[in-house]
C-alpha cells in the first residue's frame, strides 16, 4: 500500500486547510500532520512582488522525485507539495508542504527534508520587483540552503 504524493505547480493560491483535510478524511491512522507554508516576505517595505519563474514539466517531475524519496525514507500516510509561480506580492503564499504520518517524528522530518531539497533542486527562480520601479534583480541562491540539504546526505547512507 504505497503512498502516492500529490504534487501541483500552479499560479493560483492554495488552501492549506483543504489540502490537510484531504490527507485525513475517512481515515483513522493519521496521528501527526506537519504543514509548512512559505510566504513572500518584505521586511523593508521595498518589495512590490517576487516573480517566480519555473521550468514547466521538470518542476512537477523534480518535486515528485523529491517527494517519492521522502516516502521511501519515512513511514508516511500522505504527502502533498504545492508550489506557485508568477508574480506573488508580499504576504502571499509561495509554497506548501504537508506530511502526514502515524508518528510525529516522521512527519516533521519528511516536511523538513522536502523543503531543503525543494530549495536546492526544484527548478524555480525568484526575481525581485521593487516598489521604486528600479531594475528588478534575480535572487541569489544561498549557501545555507545547500548546507541544509547536505544534512540529509550524512544520515542517508543506510537507504
Amino acid at each position, binding site marked *: 500500500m504505497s503512498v502516492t504524493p500529490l504534487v501541483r505547480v500552479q499560479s493560483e493560491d492554495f488552501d492549506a486547510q483543504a489540502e490537510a483535510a484531504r490527507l485525513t478524511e475517512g481515515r483513522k491512522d493519521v496521528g501527526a500532520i506537519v504543514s509548512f507554508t512559505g510566504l513572500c516576505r518584505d521586511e523593508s517595505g521595498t518589495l512590490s512582488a517576487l516573480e517566480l519563474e519555473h*521550468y514547466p514539466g*521538470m518542476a512537477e*517531475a*523534480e518535486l515528485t522525485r523529491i517527494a517519492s524519496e521522502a516516502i521511501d525514507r519515512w513511514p508516511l500516510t500522505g504527502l502533498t507539495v504545492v508550489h506557485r509561480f508568477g508574480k506573488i506580492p508580499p504576504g502571499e503564499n509561495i*509554497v506548501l508542504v504537508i506530511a502526514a504520518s502515524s508518528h510525529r517524528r516522521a512527519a516533521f522530518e519528511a516536511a523538513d527534508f522536502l523543503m531543503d531539497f525543494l530549495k536546492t533542486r*526544484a*527548478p524555480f*527562480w525568484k526575481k525581485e520587483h521593487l516598489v521604486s520601479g528600479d531594475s528588478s534583480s534575480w535572487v541569489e541562491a544561498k549557501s545555507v540552503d545547500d548546507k541544509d540539504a547536505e544534512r540529509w546526505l550524512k544520515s542517508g547512507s543506510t537507504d
Partner: protein
Amino acid sequence: MNIRYFAWVRERVGVEEEELEIPGGVKTVGDLITHLKSLDENHAAAFEEEEAIRVALDQVHVEADADLGNAREIAFFPPMTGG
C-alpha cells in the same frame, strides 16, 4: 536538440529556447557548453560564469561530464531559488 534557458541565463542568451544541430564532436554537456559559447556574444556572456550554470537533460539534473546520449532536450539555468 531543443535547448532551453531559464532566469538570468535566458535573459543573457536572449531567447527562451532554440533548436540546434549538435556537431559530431560534441559528446558531453561540457562539450556543448564550449560549443554554445563559441556561437555569439550573448551565449558567451550567458556561460561566462560556467561554474554557476546548472544543467538538466530531459528534465533531470546532470553534471557537466554527463553524456548527451539521445536526449531530446537540455536546459541551462542558475542555481535554483524556489521555496
